[in-house]
């Protein structure tokens, strides 16, 4: 043995953290070497400050776009974090041993997308092989079952080192990251030699991924270091969240169930091996009860027994997460995972967010933000006084470069993205000129709060663009109604983000199946049609909207007739929606006109629907010249015939006059039919009809009434002006009394 003490760990392994502390207490080293980029050593003093609360991460990012980042997250139970704390408490220096972050970033750059072997041709890497071989479905479960619940130190220490050695022996030279791993180990050995000059090897503890233990053992042999590529980079501490931890997959970078692993950590500290299992199931039950589902203690006990017997079938004593989740599904969810899915997410992932002392963070999103400001020539607006910016999104043809030709468009994209992140730097104002899709007005004002919001946005992504796309996705997931998603689509479009647009469109497609209300569909269709109406002014590919609009449109056409079974109060918003869909249909050629006209004709024709809507449908058909004068005349006399209750006839007439009034007024035949109808009524019937017809004509303007009067005059052979005078005159007292008397009219006969 070389004398140096190696402790192989797995990142974010609670048992590793726990046993490492014990190990350090036993060895009492004079120096602790930890596997992390060596240029990160300067943040150590911030990590050990008492205001620093995990989870946090060290973030390194390239100075130049495209921004690439590497991330070293730490949870309370991370072995590396425990080691740092131990060293701080005992006044022992900590050294980081891995390649500097600038080299990591440069290596990542070299691995461009084209070099990557496509998914299907790639040989499975060692972890994927383990996924299959272990029979557990995932190597994480295998690791947890094998090592996370070790009863004692030597079990973990030896097991972990053995695991690393085995993984190493199964790794092949053809693995994608093999060369990088070799490079890292060369560097780590050199760091080890350097430390051994200062401290005696027996007093050094090396904390490293278990994979590397074998590779570092022969550290004493001198070797020449190769040239390491470098790219300019910066790094910072940033607050992290359990949620972010759980979304980063892959060894080292993340952990699918950070909150559950914290339970394991708590159990280790308490010395209760079954603590995590108990706590996990109890928490799920508590969550279910809080949310109004039944979950008894008996069920928790049964779930625990089942989990234990599942563990036993695998030869273990303590259930692992997979056993616990399956047991919870069976006993608490009555066999359906959907019933407990929210509870498991809450228990496994949790909502914990880390904290850092003020002023420590300098995240990549902040950098990205300032770079964008400079690039878009917006720096001068970064003041506390509000200033207006007017944008013209059209191409500036006199500009020398493409970049400056679309400067305003890019500004608009950027400001819309900030709006999505609620950064509060830019506020959008209404534009004077109506319908000018190419103009935008913004008010910009910088505040300290904006800076804080920006740091918070770091949790959503590394650049403004990435964070905005994350925010849009969040909005899609939280959308309650279909038109909310349509709004996200519009926003994604305004931000110039095609991928987010695509994502929202598929989400919209998914809800479009369940949305039942015609109004919702029509509103959404209208919105989508408007976005398409922007054309290519924003240079965003919106071709994806066409099929979804078609689908929504078709569905709306199908359900329109049944929607029209409603009372008059509900008819108003539906009429508006019908109007919206009509204008969407008119402005988009690719929508099949026939579906819409068929739906409208059905509504116009049927007698069992709301008559206002039937009339309105007829009005649209009339406007689109799908009803001839002759047909209209027949329909008017049918709707207004003597046997039809007056309120229905007048309701229909009201609907008919809701649209396209001038067209109606100009049709003499229509007024002839109305005249005929009124003449056919006897006194009682006339009184009834009068009430409703008055309502139908209530919102006609004087000029419109004039024109009608002219028509009537022509029919009766009178002078139009005379008739108009009568029609528009204030009612005399006698008439008013007569009409007032109608209020008491008994309508139920």
């Amino acid at each position, binding site marked *: 043995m070389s004398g140096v003490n190696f402790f192989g760990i797995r990142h974010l392994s609670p048992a590793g953290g726990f046993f490492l502390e014990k190990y350090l207490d036993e060895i009492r080293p004079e120096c602790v070497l930890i596997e992390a980029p060596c240029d990160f050593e300067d943040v150590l003093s911030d990590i050990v400050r008492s205001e620093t609360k995990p989870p946090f991460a060290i973030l390194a990012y390239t100075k130049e776009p495209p921004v690439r980042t590497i991330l070293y997250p730490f949870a309370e139970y991370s072995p590396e974090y425990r080691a740092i704390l131990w060293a701080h408490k005992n006044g022992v220096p900590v050294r980081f041993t891995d390649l500097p972050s600038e080299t990591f970033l440069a290596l990542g750059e070299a691995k461009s997308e084209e070099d990557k072997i496509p998914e299907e041709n790639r040989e499975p890497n060692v972890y994927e092989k383990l996924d299959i071989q272990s029979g557990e*479905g995932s190597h994480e479960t295998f690791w947890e079952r094998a090592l996370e619940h070790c009863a004692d130190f030597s079990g973990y220490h030896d097991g972990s080192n053995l695991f690393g050695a085995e993984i190493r022996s199964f790794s092949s030279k053809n693995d994608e990251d093999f060369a990088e791993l070799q490079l890292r180990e060369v560097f780590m050995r050199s760091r080890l030699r350097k430390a051994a000059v200062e401290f005696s090897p027996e007093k050094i503890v090396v904390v490293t991924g278990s994979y590397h233990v074998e590779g570092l053992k022969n550290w004493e042999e001198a070797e020449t270091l190769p040239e390491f590529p470098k790219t300019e980079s910066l790094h910072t501490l940033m607050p992290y969240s359990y949620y972010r931890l759980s979304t980063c997959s892959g060894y080292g970078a993340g952990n699918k169930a950070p909150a559950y692993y914290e339970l394991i950590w708590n159990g280790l500290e308490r010395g209760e091996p079954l603590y995590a299992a108990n706590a996990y199931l109890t928490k799920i039950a508590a969550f279910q009860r809080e949310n109004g589902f*039944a979950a*008894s203690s*008996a*069920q928790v006990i*049964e779930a625990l*027994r*089942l989990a234990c*017997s*599942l563990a*036993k*079938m695998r030869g273990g004593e303590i259930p692992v997460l997979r056993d616990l989740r*399956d*047991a919870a599904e*069976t*006993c608490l969810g*009555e*066999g*359906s995972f959907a019933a407990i899915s929210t509870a498991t997410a809450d228990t496994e992932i949790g909502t914990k967010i880390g904290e850092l002392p003020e002023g420590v963070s300098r995240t990549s999103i902040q950098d990205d933000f300032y770079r964008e400001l400079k690039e878009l020539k917006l720096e001068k607006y970064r003041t506390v006084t509000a200033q207006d910016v007017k944008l013209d999104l059209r191409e500036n043809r006199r500009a020398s470069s493409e970049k400056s030709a679309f400067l305003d468009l890019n500004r608009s994209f950027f400001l819309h993205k900030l709006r999505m992140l609620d950064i509060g730097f830019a506020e959008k104002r209404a534009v004077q000129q109506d319908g000018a899709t190419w103009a935008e007005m913004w008010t910009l004002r910088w505040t300290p709060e904006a800076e804080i919001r920006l740091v918070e946005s770091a949790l959503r992504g590394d650049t403004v663009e990435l964070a905005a796309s994350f925010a849009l996705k969040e909005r899609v997931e939280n959308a309650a109604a279909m038109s909310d998603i349509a709004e996200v689509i519009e926003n994604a479009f305004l931000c110039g983000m095609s991928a987010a647009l695509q994502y929202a469109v*598929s989400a919209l*497609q*998914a809800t*479009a*199946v*369940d949305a039942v209300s015609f109004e919702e569909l029509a509103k959404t269709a209208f919105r989508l049609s408007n976005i398409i109406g922007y054309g290519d002014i924003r240079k965003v590919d919106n071709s994806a909207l066409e099929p979804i609009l078609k*689908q929504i449109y*078709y*569905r709306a056409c*199908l*359900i329109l007739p*049944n929607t029209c079974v409603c009372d008059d109060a509900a008819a108003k918003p539906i009429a508006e929606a019908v109007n919206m869909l009509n204008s969407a249909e008119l402005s988009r050629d690719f929508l099949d006109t026939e579906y819409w006209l068929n739906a409208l004709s059905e509504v116009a024709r049927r007698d069992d629907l709301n008559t206002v809507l039937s009339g309105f449908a007829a009005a649209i058909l009339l406007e689109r010249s799908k009803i001839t004068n002759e047909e209209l005349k027949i329909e008017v006399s049918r709707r207004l015939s003597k046997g039809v209750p007056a309120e229905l006839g007048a309701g229909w007439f009201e609907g008919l006059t809701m649209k396209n009034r001038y067209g109606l007024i100009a049709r003499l035949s229509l007024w002839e039919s109305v005249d005929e109808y009124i003449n056919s009524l006897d006194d009682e019937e006339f009184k009834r009809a009068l009430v409703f017809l008055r309502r139908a004509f209530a919102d006609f303007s004087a000029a419109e009434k004039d024109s009608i009067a002219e028509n009537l005059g022509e029919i009766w052979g009178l002078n139009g002006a005379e008739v108009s005078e009568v029609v528009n005159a204030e009612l005399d007292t006698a008439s008013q009394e007569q009409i007032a008397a109608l209020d008491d009219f008994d309508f139920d006969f």
Partner: protein
Amino acid sequence: MEQQILRLPAEKLFEEELNALIKAEKDPIPAGWRMSPRSVKTYICGGKVGKTVITPKYIGHERLVEIAIATLVTDRALLLIGEPGTAKSWLSEHLTAAINGDSSRVIQGTAGTTEEQIRYSWNYAMLIANGPSETAMLKSPVFTAMEDGAIARVEEISRCASEVQDTLISLLSEKRVSVPELNMEVPAKKGFSIIATANTRDKGVNDMSAALKRRFNIVVLPSPETLDAEMEIVRTRVSQLSEGLSLNAALPKDAVIEKVCTIFRELRRGETLDKKQKVKAPSGVLSTAEAISLLCNSMALAGSFGSGDITDEDIAAGLQGAVVKDEQSDKIAWKEYLENVMKKRGSSWSGLYKACRELNE
């Protein structure tokens, strides 16, 4: 004699495999069991013991089988839930065959099942002649399972009336039957348990009370996982059925089976197979069993009124009946599916699309 039996019980049919597993047993065996939980899993999911190949009895979700077996180890009762045709009874039969070597302790639940059939009843001639005694008792399968420390099966538990279901509640929690007439109590031996099966979406089933459900560990058996698996099931069953029914028509081509299975799977799951598009699911179950009967029907149509080859029109007629169960909403869902999904599938689907479309004009 044996040739005349339509269907042998599982423990007879797979006797060799079971014996091989018992012989090769290395792991600890729970009380009342014939083999270890691990061997039971091998028996159900397939594998190899020495030279004997164990055929898989249940293909697909091995983890579900593990959960089912682990449940029985803990003396909890097991409830298998699923849509019609998801191999619930099949699994329960094989579990008991492996664990006890006896799958015959069955109560077949119906709306007419009584409490006595679950507990015990009397041989009335003996009861009247000699008065109550143990010899005059007619013990139910559950009763004998308790005495022997074995597993009893209750099929279609949700079809039993609620008071009959209630009988099981106290049996399962106290693990003993009391016989007040003889002033005695029969405690269950170690190894006793119950496997019940129930349908989720069907007519004529009673809801199970929370109290009863709580006494079971519930495992939901899903529909076939992949299109290929479902097609295989449909293909074999259709050819078996059509032989017996002599339908005078050619067996459906693979392309036809694929189309029907695709439509069924997409409507059942509410999304297209490539997961790119959601579709509205109609009210019906659309089980694999229905796909089978649809194809048999189409064969009957083709054989009796057509050329003997299944045409798109035959399939369209069958689909219409299978999908549109509730006139209004199902029809809209089906029409939407036709327009948004099927129409865009290209030329190989256009014949079927047109035939379906015609029925919905």
